[in-house]
């Protein structure tokens, strides 16, 4: 009594087959053996549950389903590995924490899941396909006894297209002492899907196709409209840069001052006696000498620090032709101000205190280095600039 079974009532002309209904497992098993012995080929048993031993009694050969599943399982596994390799090690390489571009162990879980997924989908769908489903209509559904084939009856059906089909078929079945025997006539046209249903299905499918079509369209076209913001305050948040104005605070600034009493780590030492050591100045005048013991180690350290912190711009020999400068010129940056040549007299004549101040606070386009280089090292660099460069 499938849906379409009752929707098509057409003229019946020929015989479709013959059914015999049994009410026990033993009955159907015995009947199946007999029918098989007689040499019938186009016949089947319909049971409410898989009856043990019926496969053997009917002589059903093993299905090739497991092989399909095996093959697709392998395909899933290699597909999973390929996907991960292509996306993460080839097309868009993930370089994280110095890990190698491609390391199999991390890719096993996904490869495993893909294996199972492919194999399971194959087991499911190929079972239905091999069985010829979905096929909502079968002439068998017209038989009266057939409604109980899914409940508690066991039905043996012999197809009229079988070569041996004839009067003897009926006799054979009668000899097996079934509950009832029923002939089914074949309809002229096998259950067709009603037009209305077809129309509805068509409309539903078209509607389903709309969203992907819209997405595909958006993907390949340009729009002058701004992007759609589903939750605007998450996409466009109020942000301020350092020196911007803001109505939010009373003083009209976006940037907050440090809490009063905050001072940099070195500041407390400013208050000590050696003011010149920290600022390069004493009573408003630049120090004319280095306020430290000049030892060979001190001079070596100066050379090394200059190499580390200054040579990138000023070059190792102080000429101002460092790699940063060369690169900037290569890029033809018009606004670029080159580093000063540190070997010129203008620099050589400067007091150590003035050089110290330039390094500590930066000068014009050169940034301050006080946060990176401790004061003692800055003096070591000054010593190097004055004496060795």
């Amino acid at each position, binding site marked *: 009594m499938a849906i379409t079974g009752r929707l098509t009532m057409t003229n019946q002309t020929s015989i479709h087959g013959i059914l015999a209904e049994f009410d026990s497992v033993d009955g159907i098993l015995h009947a199946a053996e007999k029918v098989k012995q007689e040499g019938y080929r186009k016949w089947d048993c319909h049971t409410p549950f898989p009856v043990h031993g019926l496969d053997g009694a009917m002589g059903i050969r093993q299905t090739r389903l497991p092989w399909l*599943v095996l093959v697709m399982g392998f395909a899933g596994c290699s597909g999973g590995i390929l996907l991960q390799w292509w996306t993460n090690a080839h097309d868009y390489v993930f370089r994280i924490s110095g890990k190698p571009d491609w390391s199999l162990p991390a890719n096993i879980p*996904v490869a495993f899941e893909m294996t199972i997924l492919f194999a399971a989908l194959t087991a499911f769908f190929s079972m239905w396909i091999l069985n010829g489903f979905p096929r909502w209509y079968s002439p*068998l559904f017209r038989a009266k006894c057939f409604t109980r084939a899914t409940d508690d009856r066991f039905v043996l059906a012999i197809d009229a297209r079988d070569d041996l089909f004839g009067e003897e078929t009926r006799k054979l079945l009668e000899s097996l002492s079934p509950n009832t025997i029923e002939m089914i006539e074949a309809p002229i046209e096998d259950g067709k899907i009603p037009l209305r249903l077809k129309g509805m299905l068509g409309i539903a499918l078209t509607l389903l196709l709309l969203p992907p079509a819209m997405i595909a369209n958006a993907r390949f076209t340009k729009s002058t409209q701004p992007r759609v913001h589903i939750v605007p305050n998450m996409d466009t948040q109020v942000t301020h840069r350092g020196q911007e104005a803001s109505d939010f605070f009373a003083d009209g600034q976006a940037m907050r001052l440090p809490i009063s009493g905050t001072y940099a780590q070195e500041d407390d030492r400013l208050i000590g006696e050696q003011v010149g050591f920290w600022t390069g100045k004493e009573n408003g005048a630049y120090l004319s000498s280095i306020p430290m013991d000049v030892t060979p180690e001190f001079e070596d350290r100066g050379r090394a620090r200059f190499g580390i912190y200054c040579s990138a711009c000023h070059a190792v020999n102080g000429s101002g032709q460092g790699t940063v400068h060369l690169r900037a010129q290569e890029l033809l940056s018009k606004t670029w101000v080159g580093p000063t040549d540190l070997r010129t007299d203008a620099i050589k004549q400067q007091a150590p205190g003035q050089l110290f101040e330039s390094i500590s606070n930066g000068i014009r386009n050169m940034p301050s280095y006080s946060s990176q280089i401790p004061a003692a090292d800055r003096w070591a660099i000054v010593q190097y600039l004055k004496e060795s460069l």
Partner: protein
Amino acid sequence: MAKYANVNELSDSQLDNLLEPPALVQNAETFHDITESVCSIAEADRMPRSWYVLFTLALCFLGVLGAMIFHLFTTGVGVWGNNQPVAWGFPIVNFVFWVGIGHAGTLISAVLYLFRQGWRTGINRFSEAMTIFAVCCAGLFPAIHVGRVWVIYWVFPIPNQMDMWPNFRSPLLWDVFAVGTYFTVSLLFWYMGMVPDLATQRDRAKTKLRQFLYGIFALGWNGSNRHWHRYERAYLLLAALATPLVLSVHSVVSFDFAVAQIPGWHTTIFPPYFVAGAIFSGFAMVLTLSIPARALFGFKHIITMRHIELMCKVIMCTGMLVGYAYAMEFFMAWYSGNRYEGFTFVNRAFGPYAWAYWTMVSCNVISPQIFWFKRARRCIPLIFVISIFVNIGMWFERFVITVTSLNRDFLPSSWNYFSPTIVDILTLAGSFGLFFTLFLLFCRWLPQVAISEVKNVMPSAHPHGNHGEVNHD
């Protein structure tokens, strides 16, 4: 049939005494009785009153869930209690909780099927449905917790305008694949098992609409033995595939924690410990659902006392497994000599969340111990209460793992006490609404028991005579 017409009015012990040793299907003598008792529910015009009460309640909670999700989407994840240092609050706890529950279904259907445990047939459809709905609830949480839900598709390897791909070395992406595969395979398994029963309902349907709908989903199943042959093969294969899958899913979920270098998470015991916990909580949920259902819908002869006893034993066994894992975690924390690991565990048991820890231990380790006694394994109200305890305990287990490991991390200056917001709590409650709505609808319209499989384990399903090649088993 007439003789046992009012079989549901018999007490469980009476039912038990009728057949000795306890049979898998009691007092249903003919195949038709089974069909009748399962199908008549979906065919009835009305449900028992309690069904309507529960369904209304479930719908209310579902509404709450909808409202909370709307609030979340329009406002942002700040509505939850998640914050530094406990950035993984309720959403992850709930996710792991629901995924765990979703494990019993496939375990019962697949693993017990492979081990040829006939008793699974009474409860498998039931627990498979539970699995599907629990995984729905589980999938919800990671999906909504990302903050910008409208780009959640970034978790899938779909070519996009940014020319970027997801990071396959992240356990969170493994989760997407594991949970996605698990949901798909469970759904296929559930649906496939249901097709022959849907055909039974189709053939019994009286109205056009029912014939049409059941007919569509039955795909035209006609019980052909040639079909059954491939069907059984495919079912066996799906069971064989689902078994390693079910073990892998909770292992992958545990990697979300174990791969991170947080003391209390970074341990190798996590995968087996999580799997045991999942089976534990899943079976508890099956009991919580099936005890009222068998009374309500009259399945006492299909889900028998023997099923319930067996499930109690599984709960006791897995409860001791998780108890062992709790103890082993402590042992390793001490034995490793790692200060941070040691601190985390002392903090777990005696720190600010000691109340959660001891709730967990008493619910999960201590309460199932009562099942050592046969009397307890046969006392329905007690079993029901313990099953609820286990559900609570397992939720707290995930809470303890997630929150206690994070709330006091390496930097004492950032230590903080996590407390959920009302939105957190209502979302959790709402997820139960989703679960029960789906479950009650399933009870109403679909075959709650695998009719064809139950028939298969009945004595009359086995041939008696000598049928040539037939092999007797």
